[in-house]
């Protein structure tokens, strides 16, 4: 007993160096909350810089891990697993977090709440880091709850009626979803007597389990994860939340928590598929989910007047496209999924940067308000056009490359398995790319084709976030013409299948 404890303590101790990014995150959260207690001038800027520095540090250590870690490491008594896939995901979260933090927090209330805001941001990133590495059901639960609870609060950070309502809805839905998830987990625990879901014994026990309970339990858990990626039918919270939360938060929600969900889903699917012995035809289930998600996202987006709400639905549709990687579920598919995720971060953040810029400076909220904006700033108009093209998935943007890869993977999966569902998904997905053109084109359409009231010079054009967005757009173009680098990076992650 004594020895076991000692063994455990040393294990924890030796794990700490590999936990540096997370430690920094926690430190950062505490620091920001602490500094936030003082009422000082230019507090928001200070907080922002602080958060950005913290995230940059995190990113730095993430990248160090990427460069130096070639092995799979079990940390903290096998609670978490640090492998290259997890590091790559962490880099993506760090990047996404950094981008959104740089967008700033422009709430002008009676009391500056930026300290809490950035602290919560960091805690979501922290949760995402945990989730990406989780190799224990408990870790999944904790990671997801850290993300969720922080998100609930962030949702209300517009401090108005809608925002609070959305927060409540998000919370109730999320609580119910996580309840369902842990109920499912408890059953899995019952089947296997273990929570370490990546272990061989866990799989063996699952294979012995009865079909019906196993189906229900694994679906329950999966549903909890689908909630995070806002996939149908667990997507319903998303539009409300996305509409009423502050725009940077929305950008953030559409990236970090969602990709965290994908990070764990990839790992989870590997387990739950039971090497193809699962009683559930997961490819079919996920294909249906993906189709529903794409359809709901795209078709609902068609009728949105609010730019943010449209982007919210669009991000649901993108979840569907990302899910395609899980449907195909081969090495190529997961790599394509990662590629898509990386590109998705770029284009989505860029889209939100400019939508929030226009909202802030020109009070442009509805799509109709974009009328004639091209005359005010042709540059921003052009950049927005490129972003929308990328979101649609047309060349010459990386959005196209991402779609090409993910559909290639799906096609390859189809060719290998002859699973008709995949073919339907392929056709459906591609046709939906056409449908999506409708609403993505709306913004350029109003901006360029319609005469509007906007005239004169662009306001506050030269801000950090505009530059950031501009570089993202450049990156989108460059990654179309030369995706080799990013792809090689992703290629170096090996997935055991």
């Amino acid at each position, binding site marked *: 007993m004594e020895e076991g404890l000692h063994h455990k303590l040393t294990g924890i101790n030796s794990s700490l160096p590999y936990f540096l990014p997370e430690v920094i995150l926690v430190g950062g959260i505490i620091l920001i909350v602490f500094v936030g207690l003082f009422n000082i001038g230019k507090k928001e800027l200070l907080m922002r810089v602080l958060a950005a520095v913290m995230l940059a540090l995190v990113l730095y250590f993430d990248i160090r891990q990427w460069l130096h870690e070639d092995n799979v490491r079990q940390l903290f008594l096998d609670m978490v697993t640090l492998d290259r896939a997890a590091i790559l995901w962490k880099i993506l979260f760090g990047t996404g977090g950094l981008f959104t933090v740089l967008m700033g927090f422009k709430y002008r209330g009676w009391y500056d709440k930026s300290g809490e805001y950035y602290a919560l941001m960091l805690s979501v990133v922290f949760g995402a880091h945990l989730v990406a590495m989780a190799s224990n059901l408990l870790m999944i639960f904790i990671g997801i*709850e850290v993300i969720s609870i922080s998100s609930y609060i962030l949702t209300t950070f517009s401090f108005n009626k809608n925002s609070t309502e959305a927060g409540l809805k998000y919370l109730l839905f999320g609580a119910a979803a996580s309840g369902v998830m842990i109920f499912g987990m*408890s059953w899995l625990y019952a089947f296997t007597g273990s929570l370490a879901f990546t272990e061989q014994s866990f799989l063996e026990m699952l294979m012995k389990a009865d079909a019906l309970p196993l189906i229900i339990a694994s679906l329950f858990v999966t549903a909890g994860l689908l909630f995070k990626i806002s996939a149908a039918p667990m997507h319903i919270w998303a539009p409300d939340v996305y509409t009423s939360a502050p725009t940077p938060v929305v950008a953030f929600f559409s990236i970090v928590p969602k990709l965290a969900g994908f990070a764990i889903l990839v790992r989870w699917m590997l387990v739950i598929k039971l090497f193809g012995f699962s009683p559930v035809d997961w490819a079919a289930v996920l294909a249906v989910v993906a189709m529903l998600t794409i359809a709901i996202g795209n078709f609902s987006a068609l009728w949105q007047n609010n730019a943010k709400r449209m982007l919210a639905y669009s991000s649901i549709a993108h979840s569907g496209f990302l899910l395609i990687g899980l449907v195909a579920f081969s090495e190529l598919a997961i790599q394509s999924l990662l590629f898509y995720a990386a590109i998705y971060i770029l284009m989505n953040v860029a889209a939100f940067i400019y939508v929030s810029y226009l909202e802030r400076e020109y009070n442009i909220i509805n799509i109709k308000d974009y009328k004639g904006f091209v005359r005010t700033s042709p540059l921003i108009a052009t950049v927005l056009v490129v972003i929308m093209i990328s979101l649609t998935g047309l060349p010459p943007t990386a959005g196209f490359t991402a779609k090409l890869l993910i559909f290639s993977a799906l096609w390859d999966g189809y060719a290998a398995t002859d699973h008709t569902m995949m073919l339907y998904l392929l056709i459906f997905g591609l046709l939906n790319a056409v449908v999506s053109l409708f609403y993505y084109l709306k913004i350029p359409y109003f901006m360029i084709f319609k005469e509007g009231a906007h005239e004169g010079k662009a306001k506050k054009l030269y801000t950090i976030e505009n530059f950031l967005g501009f570089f993202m757009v450049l990156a989108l173009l460059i990654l179309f013409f030369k995706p080799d680098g990013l792809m090689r990076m992703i290629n170096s992650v090996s997935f055991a299948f």
Partner: protein
Amino acid sequence: MTIENYFILSAILFCIGMAVVITRKNAIVVLMGVELILNAANVNFVAISRLDNVQIEGQFFSLFVIVVAAAEAAVALAIILKVYKYYNTTNLNEINQLKG
């Protein structure tokens, strides 16, 4: 008492919780429904943990669930307070400004 009885208990708790979540109109009551669901899981975890005397992971899990549920409840109550300030009600049917 066989382990099946715990399962049945937890299943009943889960269903009641779900029913409460779906049907009750008061936000706080709904929150209680969520707690019921979580506790249904807890019952399972603890019960199964009995079979596994070495690791007792299930018990740890349920501890975490309780902690998280508490945190969640704290946040939820704060938000519900806010909502009440805006809407003067906690009736979820009336809190539906956002739709479509």
